[in-house]
């Protein structure tokens, strides 16, 4: 027994080198296995079906159909309109709030905490809340306006092709402005005091300080916030699905909704996969642009 133990002891120092090499692989193995099963395989499979017709024959039709599909083109347009408007408003509001609550004002911590509440709600719940509030006949918003003597007859929100898009954007802004605020506030707090003192000594106005000191130093935080929000906005689904289901007509149908419908309602998985790849490609292109800007900043 004792000689055996001895051998093991000697062996330890040899295999010690080996296990240092192999432990990382061992630790990664479960993750790799799960990734292979749940991400890599489905990805390859979806590439495959995007080049197949419903009967399984190889075809390019799923991609050629994209150009002539009115529903796809307008869903794509809606997605970008939605993302651009929501992103702009969320960014400007978030920046303003971050600037405001960065300074020393009374009840700062309370405001900060309150602002984060919407972020903690599931988007589906946000959809339901706004759906109730925006209901044109029984909703809180029109009810309040009516009380102040406004004529709310034409304010049909989710039923109006013009206001429908505004309604879903308002809900998004309500929920996600705090996210912008959070990242921008963290960015602001990371800026050292010295540049501000130097600017003060040089006699810069508040606007000049903001434009030439704060903004450039905040740029990395801004780009990260914009990048994350853009990716999120381009694949928006939940609260639109609850609020308008893409309607009225097709007025608020975004690409994710149309992809969902095509796959799970019309059981055309190949075409849905083709559309998903277009969305993925566009999201990637935009992300790369952001990341380039970030790199340029670092250099």
């Amino acid at each position, binding site marked *: 027994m004792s000689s055996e133990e001895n051998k093991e002891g000697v062996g330890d120092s*040899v*295999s010690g*080198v*080996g*296990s240092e*090499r*192999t432990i990382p*692989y*061992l630790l990664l*193995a*479960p993750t790799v*296995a*799960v990734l*292979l*099963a749940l991400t890599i395989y489905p990805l390859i499979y979806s590439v495959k079906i995007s080049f197949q017709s419903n009967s399984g024959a190889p075809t390019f039709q799923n991609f050629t159909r994209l150009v002539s599909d*009115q*529903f796809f083109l307008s869903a794509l347009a809606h997605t970008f309109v939605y993302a651009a408007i929501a992103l702009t408003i969320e960014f400007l509001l978030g920046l303003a709030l971050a600037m405001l609550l960065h300074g020393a004002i009374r009840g700062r911590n309370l405001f900060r905490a309150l602002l984060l509440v919407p972020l903690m709600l599931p988007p589906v719940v946000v959809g339901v809340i706004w759906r109730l509030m925006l*209901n*044109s*006949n*029984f909703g809180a918003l029109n009810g309040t306006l*009516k009380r102040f003597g406004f004529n709310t*007859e*034409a304010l*049909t*929100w*989710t*039923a*109006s*092709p013009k206001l*429908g898009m505004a309604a879903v954007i308002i809900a998004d802004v309500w929920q996600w402005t705090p996210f912008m605020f959070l990242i921008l506030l963290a960015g602001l707090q990371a800026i050292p005091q010295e540049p501000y003192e130097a600017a003060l000594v040089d006699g810069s106005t508040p606007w000049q300080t903001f434009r030439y000191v704060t903004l450039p130093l905040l740029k990395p935080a801004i780009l990260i916030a914009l990048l994350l929000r853009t990716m999120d906005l381009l694949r928006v689904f939940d609260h639109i699905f609850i609020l*308008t*289901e*893409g*309607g*009225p*007509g*097709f*007025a608020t149908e975004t690409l994710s909704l149309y992809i969902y*419908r095509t796959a*799970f*309602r*019309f*059981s*055309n998985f190949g075409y849905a996969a083709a559309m998903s790849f277009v969305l993925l490609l566009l999201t990637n292109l935009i992300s790369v642009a952001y990341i380039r800007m970030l790199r340029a900043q670092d250099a």
Partner: protein
Amino acid sequence: MYPANMKTVRTITGLIAFVVLAFSACMRPGRQDTRTLTLAINSGVEGDALKQAAQDYEAQTGIHINIAEFPYANLFEKELIDLNAHSGAYDLIMLDDPWFPKFASLNVLSDLSPLLQKRGKSGPDDDFVTASLALCREPYQTGTLLALPYVGNSQLFFYRKDLFQKNTLKEPATWDDVLAAAKAISEHETTGAAGGGKIYGYVMRAAQGNAAVADFMPIFWAFGGEMFDVNGQPAVNSPEGIAALKFMIELGKYSPPGYASFNADEVGAHLLQGTAAMSINWPAWISSFSDAAKSKVIGKMEFGQLPGAKNPGRAEIGNWLIAIPGDAKNVEAAMDFLLWATSRDQMKLSAQRGNPPTRKSVFTDPELVARFPSYPAQLRSLESSRPRPRTPQWNEIENAFGIYLSKANSGELTADDAMNQANAEIKKIVERGK
């Protein structure tokens, strides 16, 4: 090579094998014995009744029943994916009748006739309402029997009899009567509530998709419209079809603002609050009107037949069917359960649990008629009802058609443009399906 490396390779291979096995185990339900049945049901009043029946059956026969319950929106995709993958996960599935042609076209349902013959029956008994049983055959009415009807819904015309009497209006027989009554009620009636308390003459669902199409079809058919002409070509933009849509928009003037995004809930709310006087609706809503917690119009609502125009009024049918997947593990036991659940006695119980039956004898059962006074009207509506156009691509067609109907009702498109564009889109869908 270090022995430890070999070990690592083995460990990694082992782990991967484990994960793969674990997944395949998840995907393949365990082997079932003949004493177990698995049902896919809709979570809602229809599925609840079947669930309760299944519990009774379990107690009576000792056959164990697993229930897989899904919300309406997911049930279709779940069933389709499982049946397409031939996994045999379910022994019985509940189907909404518009889905039936899709499943029939995929050849994934069991033919019930041989199973009936084995049990000494030449076919389903003739107590089933003809219109309901016709849905269960592919082709429609004449073909192979692939399901049995369980819940017999069809549309009814809901209207406020108190307001009709007050304005000396008679039960609307035609859509012109409806329009005239809607106008009169909108102009003369109020709920008496603060801030105007307007009563709208009519209320409808025109949200894109199923809602708009279901509320439009009875008008479309009454005006002489047909989705497909005699050659099977899409024809929604016929003069009759366009006239029907124009009429719908006209009626929309007496509907609450925003109806272009209404679904069943909004319509139900308006009727229950007494802020709208007429609508096309489904029997599931009837019981709410006598519920004091929900209804401000107890005893004031009447449930009649769909109005006509050029053609007599016909309701859209919306039945729940039960079918046995072709790959079911327990076809014989499933058939026994199916016959039991759709038998007269069980259907009476299901009716008491809130589901309209599909059997004439249950509709005319005196005990039930006393409890559900609208049963005679429901039976008449069901017997003269029509199915939605029977095509495996119905989901996609309904979606496209609904979008254009909703666009026309929200004022985004004229009736002519909406119907022309809808027709072009339906043509494309049909072409793709060939």
